[in-house]
């Protein structure tokens, strides 16, 4: 048996070809960087001579590891599978990737839907221009009910509008002063505190 004489340092005209098959051997071992591997894999897929090398080296690996495994070699099986593959449709995209994309899309749609609900329901309520009875009605009526009501159970817009008007009524100031430190239960507690503070400062 002859060992390939073109060892390290070969310099004849076939050096490139030699280096290329050497790279293929390294790729088979997972020892080639991806940028170098990509064009090599393209060549492997299109050149039968490289495919023959690849096939022989896979066989060598199996034979070295286990002669029983290597003994299962069947060129007919490869040819059969190759023929059967011709009847199979070409895969166009990894479904795994698209399902992940679908998941992201679904998340996006959910966020968009939530935003739409916010825009359609909450914004008109906050502006007091919606058709919801609780908002179109006299704001002071809502405000009057605030002290005795359970704020957490109220609609966010109603509470915000109510608090804004209630804060403008001087008779409620002692109430707010007394409860300033105990009122973070609203839907937007932090905003409500700022709202009240602002109103108090204006007065």
């Amino acid at each position, binding site marked *: *048996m002859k060992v390939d004489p073109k060892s390290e340092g070969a310099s004849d005209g076939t050096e490139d070809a030699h280096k290329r*098959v050497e790279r293929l051997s390294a790729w088979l071992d997972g020892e080639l960087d991806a940028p170098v591997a990509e064009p090599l894999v393209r060549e492997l*897929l299109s050149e039968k001579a490289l495919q023959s090398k690849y096939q022989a080296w896979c066989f060598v690996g199996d034979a*070295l590891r286990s002669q*029983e495994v290597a003994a299962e070699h*069947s060129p007919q099986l490869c040819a059969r599978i190759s023929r059967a*593959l011709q009847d199979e449709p070409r895969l166009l995209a990894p479904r795994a990737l698209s399902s992940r994309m679908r998941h992201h899309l679904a998340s996006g749609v959910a966020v968009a839907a939530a935003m739409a609900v916010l825009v359609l329901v909450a914004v008109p309520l906050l502006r007091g221009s919606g058709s919801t009875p609780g908002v179109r009605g006299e704001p002071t009526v809502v405000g009057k009910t605030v002290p005795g009501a359970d704020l957490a159970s109220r609609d966010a817009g109603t509470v915000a509008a109510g608090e804004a008007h209630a804060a403008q009524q001087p008779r409620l100031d002692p109430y707010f002063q007394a409860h300033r430190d105990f009122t973070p239960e609203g839907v937007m507690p932090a905003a409500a505190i700022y709202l009240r503070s602002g109103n108090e400062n204006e007065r």
Partner: protein
Amino acid sequence: MSERDADLQLVRRVQHGDKRAFELLVAKYQRRISRLLSRMIRDPADIEDVAQEAFIKAYRALPNFRGESAFYTWLYRIAINTAKNHFAAQSRRAPTVAASDIQDQEGAEEELRLSDTATPDSLYQSKQVGMAVNRAIEQLPEDLRTAIVLRELEGLSYDEIAAAMNCPVGTVRSRIFRAREAIAQELRPLLGTREDERW
């Protein structure tokens, strides 16, 4: 990049429509899958049928392969399930087979238990491979033999082999390549193809 990544590179190409990449995966793993099946199925013709079915199933399922496991691990599971289906279909087709063979799930599991059911033909083939490999290894210069053994049998990386052999990684790469070429030359007659030929 690892060996697993090299497989994944081929998988990604199949997932984007390149069937030739799948043929390379078949060429790489057909012996291991056939060996696995031969320990579950006695009839050599059935082994080839089930192996082909397993590979085609894998091809069809490949769009769902995300690369979370090694390709071979995933393929191995498909082959096992295909063998199970083969037993189930056999038991439906041949209800007169001895009840103890197919009576229940336990019977099917019994069939699946890996056993060594070597035929005289496979024993002969195995002996031929063994002799050819030994011949090839013995004729290799020591540095090439050490490099290929550390790689293929011990699974060492090129860096590790370079450290063990006290030489640059480029030399390891060259030695492994030359050893492969030399052994392939010896095994070529068993491969059933000429040097410029593939399957």
